[in-house]
């Protein structure tokens, strides 16, 4: 049983998600804005928080900023937004993954389970953004360990972007699902820790129209 808190400012959406989640998920709290989210999360201490990117009171990033330093809670970002700035922003803020709100109930249940175990969850779109962001510049990386993706990680990301599930990726690359998870977690770590400013700049530039 995974204990989950839902944070989204649309009551209708929270109700919908609650109804769609599988029996292995227990929703222990809901919140509609940043302040109440911090309150509910502190009070209920869930394993996973489903966090909307756009929230009144500072957005999902603000919740991450207030909760993450003190609590061992894991966050899965959930949004309708396709803006690279939002996606990259919330992941760099500390979310363990990003899925769009069009995700199906079973897929979301699966993603929550994976985040609860400490793995990362990448949607095809997030994978695409990461590939784009890390290849956007020809400038030599300041810290190759953090600023570059390995060939294998790139391969895994491309398969995610092509719509493959972890199990299918494992089969395709002749590796175990656990290894796929390791690669994805490693990409997540790079995405969060790499302080190459190209990442943020790239994301911001995508927003310019």
């Amino acid at each position, binding site marked *: 049983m995974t204990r989950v808190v839902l944070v989204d400012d649309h009551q209708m959406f929270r109700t919908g998600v609650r109804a769609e989640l599988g029996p292995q998920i227990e929703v222990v709290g809901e919140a509609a804005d940043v302040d109440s989210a911090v309150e509910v999360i502190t009070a209920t201490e869930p394993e996973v928080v489903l966090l909307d990117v756009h929230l009144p009171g500072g957005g999902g990033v603000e919740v991450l900023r207030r909760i993450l330093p003190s609590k061992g809670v894991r966050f899965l970002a959930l949004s309708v*937004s*396709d*803006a690279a700035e939002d996606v990259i922003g919330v992941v760099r803020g500390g979310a363990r993954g990003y899925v769009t709100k*069009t995700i199906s109930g079973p897929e979301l249940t699966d993603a929550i389970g994976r985040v609860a175990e400490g793995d990362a969850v990448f949607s*095809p*779109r997030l*994978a*695409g953004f990461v*590939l*784009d962001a890390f*290849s956007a510049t020809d400038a030599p990386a300041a810290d190759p360990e953090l600023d570059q993706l390995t060939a294998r990680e790139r391969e895994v990301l*491309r398969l995610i*972007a*092509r*719509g*493959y599930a972890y199990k299918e990726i494992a089969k395709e690359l002749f590796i175990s699902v656990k290894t796929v998870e390791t690669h994805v977690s490693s990409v997540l770590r790079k995405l969060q820790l790499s302080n190459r400013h190209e990442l943020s700049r790239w994301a911001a530039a*995508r*927003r*310019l*129209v």
Partner: protein
Amino acid sequence: MVRLERRRDGRLVAGVCAGLAGQLGVEPFVVRLAFVVLGAAGPYGIAAYAAFWILTPAREEESRRRNPWQLLAYTLLGGGLSLLTGVTGLAQVALWPVLVVGIGAVILWQQASRDQRERWAVLPQGMWWRSLLGAVLVIAGVGGFFAQRVSPQEIPQVLLATAIILSGVTVIITPWLVKLWQELDEERAERVRSQERAEVAAHIHDSVLHTLTLIQRRAHDPKEVARLARSQERDLRAWLYQPKSDSSQMFAAAVRETTAEVEDLHGVPIEVVCVGDCPLDERIAAMVQAAREAMVNAAKYSGAPSVSVYAEVAGDELEIFVRDRGKGFDLDAVPEDRMGVRGSIIGRMERHGGTARVRSAPGEGTEIRLELKK
């Protein structure tokens, strides 16, 4: 009627002009100019100022520092005018009409509503008239020198006095002009904002409201409703989040547009992810067409609830993957004469120097991979 008081806030000498201006509802500089001109013309102006000073009570308010530059400017202006009237006879003849007309124009400008001013400011025709007026004034001034037969020794003094007056007027008028300019600027920005709002409203009306109406009308047909909602969602997303680019020019935009078309035609959601971008040429456009064919096949025949498209430009290599988790098929079992996969996808790619690989097995879905070197 409000009692006339001397202002301590914003005064230059004793606050007489600021107080009078407040009483008359005009800008203080209008009153100040009038006093300077009166003062320069003779003792009456100064006497009037002194009388106001003595007779008018000061208002109870915080007094602020005088603006030394403004004070200096008025002093210079007064000094210049006195010099001019003292030195030549020009003032009596030419200066007064000019001053009266000038002050009248300033007051008129000052009292006009903002709309009127803006109209004056933006009308190109008005610009012409003003330039013409300026030119006439300059010519009249120069002509005035000669007509008055100013002796050569006096010219430097007259010029000096004129320069002093002009700089005084400039210093006095500039802050006010700047303020006017800023107001105009703000108004322009506000207009841009309201235009943007109007555009958003128009967009929502044309697309969202229209779609909602259609959805209500087609409520009995779930597939059609889903298609409408999906197409509207895509439209809004593109409008909100995607960089505007011309699909006839760029690869990624062309892939997205093609995907949207197929989605609309066949009512199956297609998730598209693009990485990198490059300009389109004839071969790349053919590749996008091949991808379109692959999407149509997936949407029409695979029976999968959704299709994934991934397009990547890496260096000089382009790749497009079209994947579904549908029922799959056996390529060898497809009759030779069927155009679909062989002609429109594989054949087309080969004709343009690329490759197409089909990976499919019954029950395992299909993935078509298109490759092209730039």
